[in-house]
């Protein structure tokens, strides 16, 4: 039975490759050329390696991939792009960096390239709408949203069942559930929840993920559906402070060492059965379903990221877009790669290998839905998301890092939540003033 399935799989793969092979005719048009990519060292790297091999087969071009952890990735990308040395052709960059990269002139505008292609190939309307927006800055497209992440709240179906509670539908329920499982003799060796509390991007981004769901925002004029332009920071509002207090509360329901937890540790804690709940990005969801490594296989359920009672959830959206470096010497080859990789067919291949689903066709695809039951929650989530849940202006990285520093200091107990958010407010206000956003 297995052999036949494998055979069918191969045939399907072959059939999807064939149309592209025909496009590239008999010889390999890019034989001998090298395409340089830089990206983040997230779990999808192995999916990329597989798919890049396919690209090499078809076009003859060699794909060289440099991948780095999150902060280093940002560092290396900016240094390299600012240097303008043409080191890299294809840039995979995080949504909040969009403004920085666009304003810095690092990325090619993609409209001219898209215009020349068959619209069915590009299929812009097949992406989750929030993704299309994410790749745009001031109306121009700089990246294709191949790797959209959403935060889903994952929970242990078995533990919830024995405790007799339903998956959390609000922050209040989340807190109650986390408290229930921590230090509970009925559930030995388990903690309530794992969260990102490490100083810097991890906890900084976490603040931005939760603020909307506490009814707050970070700039006066930045919220879903806003038409007004007002860059006054709103970090030290009661909601802003409440998020920090919430983190302090939740710390006790986290495993020891949580203060240095970042994305990997958090996901591993859930995968190894240490915690009952973990709200993590979809990039790591397939980890929990990995038959080789996951200790919670078959016991994982997902639900939409909760908000406080009475507030409509705005689940966090994030993820990676793919664009062409303006300093690249291989722009045509880069575009060939990007349009091929982001096409519906190859995106499905990407998803099959654990890549984060970003297209409507993929999330509704029967085969994928059967293999990945959490697609249902993704489908419920993406319409609720807001593209600017984290700022995308050039100052974004710095702002998130400051929030990350101050919140982490509050968590360690060096300062109070009020003080932390006041500090952030002052810092960002000064920053926005000197950069000309505020008077």
């Amino acid at each position, binding site marked *: 039975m297995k052999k036949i399935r494998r055979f069918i799989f191969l045939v399907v793969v072959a059939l999807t490759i064939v149309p592209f092979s025909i496009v590239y005719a008999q010889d390999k048009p890019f034989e001998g050329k090298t395409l*340089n990519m830089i990206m983040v*060292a997230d779990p999808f790297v192995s999916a990329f390696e597989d798919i890049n091999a396919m690209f090499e087969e078809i076009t003859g071009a060699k794909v*060289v991939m*440099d991948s*780095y*952890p999150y902060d*280093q990735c940002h560092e*290396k990308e900016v*240094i*390299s792009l*600012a*240097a*303008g*040395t043409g*080191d*890299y052709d294809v840039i995979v960059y995080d949504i909040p960096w969009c403004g920085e990269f666009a304003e810095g002139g690092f990325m090619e505008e993609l409209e001219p390239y898209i215009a020349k292609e068959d619209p069915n190939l590009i299929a812009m309307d097949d992406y989750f709408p929030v993704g299309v927006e994410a790749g745009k800055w001031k109306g121009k497209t700089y990246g294709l949203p191949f790797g959209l992440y959403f935060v889903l709240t994952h929970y242990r179906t078995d533990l919830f069942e024995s405790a007799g509670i339903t998956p959390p539908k609000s922050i209040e329920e989340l807190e109650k559930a986390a408290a229930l499982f921590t230090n509970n003799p009925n559930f030995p060796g388990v903690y309530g929840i794992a969260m990102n509390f*490490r100083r810097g991007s991890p906890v900084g981004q976490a603040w931005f993920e939760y603020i909307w769901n506490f009814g707050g925002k970070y700039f006066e004029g930045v919220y879903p559906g806003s038409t007004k332009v007002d860059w006054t920071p709103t970090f030290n509002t009661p909601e802003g402070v409440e998020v920090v207090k919430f983190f302090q509360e939740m710390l006790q329901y986290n495993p020891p060492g949580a203060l240095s937890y*970042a994305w*990997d*540790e958090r996901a*591993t804690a859930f995968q190894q059965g240490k915690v009952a709940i973990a709200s993590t990005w979809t990039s790591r969801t397939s980890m929990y379903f990995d038959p080789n490594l996951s200790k919670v296989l078959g016991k994982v359920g997902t639900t939409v990221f909760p908000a406080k009672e009475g507030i409509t959830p705005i689940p966090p959206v994030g993820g990676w877009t793919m664009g062409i470096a303006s300093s690249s010497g291989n722009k045509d080859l880069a575009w060939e790669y990007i349009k091929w990789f982001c096409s519906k067919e190859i995106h499905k291949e990407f998803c099959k290998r654990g890549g984060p689903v970003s297209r409507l066709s993929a999330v509704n695809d029967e085969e994928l839905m059967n293999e990945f039951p959490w697609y249902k929650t993704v489908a419920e989530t993406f319409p609720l998301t807001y593209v600017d849940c984290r700022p995308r202006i050039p100052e974004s990285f710095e702002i998130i890092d400051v929030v990350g520093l101050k919140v982490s200091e509050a968590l360690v107990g060096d300062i109070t939540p009020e003080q932390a958010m006041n500090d952030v407010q002052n810092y960002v206000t000064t920053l926005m003033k000197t950069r000309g956003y505020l008077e």
Partner: protein
Amino acid sequence: MNIKSKFLIYFLAIIIVLISVFPIVWLVMTSFKTRVEIFSIPPIWFPKISFENYIAEFSGGSSRLPFLFNSLKVAFFSTLITIIIGSLAAFGMARFPVPGKRNLEFWILSIRMMPPVAVIIPLYLIMRSLKLLDTNIGLIIVYVSFNLPFVIWILAGFLRGIPKDIEEAALIDGCNWFQSLVRISLPLSAPGLATVSIFSFMFSWNELLAALVLTGRNAKTLPVAISEYWSTTQIRWEAMAATSVIHIIPIIIVTFLIQRYIVRGLTMGAIKE
């Protein structure tokens, strides 16, 4: 010295050396381990010796070999240039009545004290406008500037220690200028030259910050490549160890060969006769 004291001294010396050296041994052992062995508790002191990590890191698609070559090229040429420019300057400073010499010497010495982190940003901008970012040449230029003050200072001190009489005797004996330089001064300064060459090479070989900022995929040096193993999670210890061992082997060899010069170089920096 009696047997007891001798024994005590050897004993203490060995303990001190062990403390100093165990991380090196640990590093080498780690480079032989497999992924699983890295995480084992209790820690494995003597894994089976296997070179698969070395092969993995220095061959194939993501080979670190080019970076090793970059380090070699940059260290070698920066040392060469530094020695040439530096010995000229040291010679001029030590043997000639240059006006304002005392001030010049102070100035050169102060530059030696300057922390690289203070000038790294302008250097980045300068190199960028010269289109020398991510090139070996760019890094060589910067390293020469870092090493020059030290080299001049040490060599000048060394040359001053060589009595002028010998050279004057040679001149009286009929040697001309140039012959005196080549036959007398050069051989006498050989230990000094050896010392500064080694320090210069070592500095360039070990340097991180400038390389981090000024190089990219093409001119990356080995320390940068090693720093890239760092991540908040999932550090590939075995790979990092293999690359590091390759990096430190030349240093270890050189240290043993030239240890006398090293001691002299360090103390020359600290002790005035």
